[in-house]
């Protein structure tokens, strides 16, 4: 497998309560390279939902600072995407 390596990239899950949270995520997505996993795009975020997105390594500190400064509740689903992608080939089947 060649191409992008995803070293140090993270996947976040943000717990969205209200329109204010949605607006904050719109602002975040407008200034950072964010790959939405669920929902498919920032425009589909609804109140009382969770949002999963991937952030490239160089943007992680900015994104984490933003989430904490704005008191958005979140967790890190995947702390290093490269590790998860390597682990996907874990089959022992021949």
């Amino acid at each position: 497998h060649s191409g992008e390596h995803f070293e140090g990239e993270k996947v976040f899950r943000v717990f969205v309560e209200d329109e204010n949270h949605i607006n904050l995520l719109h602002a975040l997505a407008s200034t950072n390279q964010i790959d939405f996993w669920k929902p498919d795009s920032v425009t589909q975020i609804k109140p009382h939902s969770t949002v999963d997105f991937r952030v490239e390594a160089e943007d992680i500190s900015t994104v984490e600072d933003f989430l904490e400064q704005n008191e958005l509740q979140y967790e890190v689903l995947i702390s290093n995407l490269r590790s998860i992608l390597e682990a996907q080939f874990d089959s022992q089947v021949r």
Partner: protein
Amino acid sequence: ATGHSYEKYNNWETIEAWTQQVASENPDLISRSAIGTTFEGRTMYLLKVGKPGPNKPAIFMDCGFHAREWISPAFCQWFVREAVRTYGREIHMTEFLEKLDFYVLPVVNIDGYVYTWTKNRMWRKTRSTHDGTTCIGTDPNRNFDAGWCKLGASRNPCDETYCGPAAESEKETKALANFIRNNLSSIKAYLTIHSYSQMMLYPYSYDYKLTEDNVELNALAKATVKELATLHGTKYTYGPGATTIYPAAGGSDDWAYDQGIKYSFTFELRDKGRYGFALPESKIRPTCEETMLAIKHIANYVLEHP
């Protein structure tokens, strides 16, 4: 096919060779045809699985709409394997294949799938280009003529949910839609396999309105996810797409339903976030096994409701 494994992720060349091999090794059950070519010129192979017979009803199932959802093509291959492996040995599959045909499209977005193996594992869209933009790719599940680009889709070619310059602008979606249009009289169910988030969705996604079959589809989905959970306890949510997940126009399930295919469902396979699009190969077997229960439940229902 050299190197092919049902419990590993296979690249496109391996899957393509497998379609040829599985068809040639099971000529009494499987026939292979080409329904079109992709933007980059790859052949889109469709497997027809079932004992030959006149006027058989059919279930159409596709996998690999979104390139990075690797578990989806893995399931289509698993389904074909289970069909040929258990025909004549297991009463339900035997009955299905004698009374039904399954049309299986193992990978819809082949170019995108190849790209995830060679350049960018996280690629989602097709690989087409269009005039007026340097951005590449259209979301194939926003490209069908079902409230096309009205809601939950983007007109910006650089976005992941770009609906394309027109409905069915993509060669892949056009080929799929043409096949279904040409076989509407026999196709009784449409199933499209995605990942992740463990959901079973039915129309509509392009509107908050409910279909006239909502009660029946809801009951069938409820029973199907209950059956799926019997094997490993995997919990699926279910419901109409717009309210259960989010509104999104241009989806293939909505389009198929509006063509008259009542039993039209989208499956979002495992998991719920731990692995996302990188589900480990060791999870292929349990995921496919439980999904088989769901597909067989629907097939049985279709047979009982002609």
